[in-house]
């Protein structure tokens, strides 16, 4: 249907676009193997694995990784229940209250991360709590809850309410209905939300930057390395993180194939 010329032009554009998207990542990953003090791919000083060894032996990196994992787990533990409960509430109310609550709940997604960090920092300082990763966790949760809420709400809106009503009519308590009907129905959404919440926390930089006190997470570690004497050790870490991301994306795509019921 499109003319041949259009097709050729669009295909050419797509190839350039994909190059644009992936060439930088490829360059960064390749630089991890270059035996050069500054991360680059030209000139090539010989292939080496010493940056991976340096990364492995870097205590600061392990500390940062542990911190990121702990904050990520805490963020999941806080935001998945809160986001789910908020979605359940929102799903059963109508009218003005709903619009108002909905607006409040999605607002954190539109607020720049550094402002979330700053407001969290000041609020808790006024209550006498000084900065640290506990504040980073709380700050991150304020918008991770929004993601969880949206995912659970999307699933709830496709739920057949008569299932719940039938359970209640047959004498199940409200708690039983939630546990035996609603939560199993939400299983996939909750699982995805858990993974996403952990990922969002692990990836976070802006909110963490202002609330962390002196503590370091993986993103803070990478940023400070880039700004103060970068070596290809950062590229080695980048390769590890990108590999995990690609694997996760592929697994997600493959698992998604059968249409969600």
């Amino acid at each position, binding site marked *: 249907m499109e003319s041949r010329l259009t097709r050729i032009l669009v295909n050419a554009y797509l190839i350039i676009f994909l190059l644009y998207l992936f060439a930088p*990542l490829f360059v960064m990953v390749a630089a991890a193997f270059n035996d050069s003090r500054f991360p680059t791919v030209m000139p090539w000083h010989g292939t080496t694995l010493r940056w991976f060894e340096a990364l492995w032996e870097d205590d600061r990196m392990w500390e940062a990784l542990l911190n990121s994992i702990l904050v990520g787990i805490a963020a999941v533990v806080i935001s998945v229940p809160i986001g789910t409960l908020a979605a359940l509430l929102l799903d059963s109310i*109508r009218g003005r209250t709903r619009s108002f*609550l909905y607006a409040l709940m999605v607002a954190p997604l539109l607020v720049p*991360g550094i402002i979330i960090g700053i*407001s969290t920092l000041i609020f808790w300082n006024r209550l006498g709590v000084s900065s640290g990763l506990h504040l980073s966790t709380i700050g991150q949760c304020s918008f991770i809850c929004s993601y969880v809420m949206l995912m659970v709400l999307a699933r709830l809106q496709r739920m057949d309410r008569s299932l719940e009503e039938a359970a209640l009519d047959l004498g199940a308590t*409200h708690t039983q209905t939630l546990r035996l009907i609603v939560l199993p129905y939400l299983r996939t959404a909750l699982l995805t939300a858990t993974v996403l919440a952990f990922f969002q926390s692990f990836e976070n930089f802006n909110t963490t930057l202002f609330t962390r006190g002196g503590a370091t997470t993986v993103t803070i570690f990478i940023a400070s390395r880039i700004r103060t004497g970068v070596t290809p050790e950062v590229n080695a870490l980048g390769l590890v993180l990108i590999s995990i991301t690609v694997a996760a994306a592929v697994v997600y795509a493959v698992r998604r194939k059968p249409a969600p019921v």
Partner: protein
Amino acid sequence: MKDVLSRYGTTLTGMMVLATFLWLAGMVVLPYLVMVDFSFRPNLLPADLGGDKDHLTLDNYETLFRNTIHIVVFLRTIWGSALATFLCLAVSYPVAYFLAKMASPKQAATLLLLLVIPFWINEILRTFAWFIILAYNGPLNGVLRLIGAIDAPIRWIAGSNGVIAGMTYAYTVFMVFPVYNAIETLDRNQIEAARDLGAPLWRIHLRVVLPHAKPGIAVGCIMVFTAAAGSYIVPAILGAPGTRWFTEIIYQWFFEGQNWQQGSAYAFLLLILCIAFVMAMMRIFKVGLADIAR
């Protein structure tokens, strides 16, 4: 509320209300209010707290308007974010159109997967990649010299060039998905009809596809602009010395100037800028919050 009670009973409803309240009051509304209140207060020594000097003031806001350098940085942040937003749209639009209307289902699925990958890779790593590429002795200059396009290396990271390039790269994926979603719902027959009636390609896009894609474009622009205006790491890594971003000044007030009140005022100004942009987009393109959050 009655509906909730009959659906979930008292205990569960109580838990839902409590959780929602803890989140929205304790993590969203109160912190913002406290920050705004803080921005109207002077930076006092602990001894002066509650004393004569402890009153509401506009001083922290006047600081910005008295400081030409800070105003320049603020304007640069607005201009740079707008430019990055426009570039993201220009780069993404053909891809979104291809995905929605030209690709076979298999091609579309593959391309979507390919797009998801950089989307999930950390912003800092994506920025770092450009830091390597644009370096004075980096691969871009290397390749250009190899093919004879330039004789001497070019300093790419100069002024805001690096920042704009990095942001366009880092945030393009924020634009592709919403624009793609919007174009996908366009009835192919409308494009066919326009073509049969003799409309040239550019007019089909200008008069049929673009108007239909408006909500998606609005969402994409909001995502990119707020990410760009609020970005700290991209200007910190790719900004040339002397071309700071507003977020960097906010950071300085907090951690170098130790003046949190002043920093809060600047942070609130940044928030107002973002809210104004979001409202303008929603008004111009007639979209609601629910469209954005999708």
